[in-house]
């Protein structure tokens, strides 16, 4: 198996159930969201099998907690509210994820986003890229442009 880029199916269901708050919203007669959930990003080995069928974040296939990597990953900066571009809604973390002086425990090719505020650490999405091994140097993952075409998470 391999990692597959996907919005996790369970996240789509949970979006309909109001499980996640990637942004805030004013009182609208139903609910008020004043605190956004914390979204984290973790790195997974190329040998892992993360994909659309995932439900929650776990450490299976994640980089080991060595070489300046901490399992669980890093908290993503979320300063930009979800919005729409035409008929497409989109959301993108507002800053890169980075690791300093990292030595990865193996080759990795996937980043998993998950809701760290949720008790179950509900998974949001899997993003794949070319396999990378980092040795005693920095690794940075920069987000795509936040618009209706390239935003990291889109509902079209």
């Amino acid at each position, binding site marked *: 198996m391999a990692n597959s880029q996907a919005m996790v199916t369970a996240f789509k269901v949970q979006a309909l159930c109001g499980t996640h708050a990637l942004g805030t919203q004013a009182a609208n007669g139903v609910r008020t969201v004043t605190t956004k959930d914390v979204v984290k990003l973790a790195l997974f080995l190329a040998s892992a099998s993360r994909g659309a069928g995932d439900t929650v974040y776990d450490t299976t296939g994640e980089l080991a907690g060595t070489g300046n990597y901490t399992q669980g990953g890093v908290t993503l900066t979320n300063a930009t509210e979800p919005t729409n571009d035409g008929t497409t809604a989109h959301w993108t973390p507002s800053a890169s994820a980075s690791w300093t002086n990292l030595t990865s425990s193996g080759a990795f090719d996937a980043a998993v986003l998950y809701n760290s505020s949720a008790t179950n650490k509900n998974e949001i999405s899997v993003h794949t*890229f070319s396999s990378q091994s980092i040795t005693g140097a920095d690794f940075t993952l920069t987000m795509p442009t936040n618009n209706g075409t390239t935003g990291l998470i889109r509902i079209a």
Partner: protein
Amino acid sequence: MEILIHKLIRNGWPQDCEQEMIDDSLLEKSEGSIDDENEHTTWTEWRLDGKIVKRGAHVRLKKNVAAEAVAAMFY
């Protein structure tokens, strides 16, 4: 100029440290990139005697994940 490298393991070199400084003139530096529909990635590698002793990378994601929102019609 000296740079910090990671876990240089070879005979005659210190075995008890995770990192050490080495003159960069002893290292072979190379850079590479990938640019496709999914990502723009650049990396820099430093090799000593053919072995990678330092490697960093920068991945810029281009491709997103999308959910199709469908409101069904009543028939």
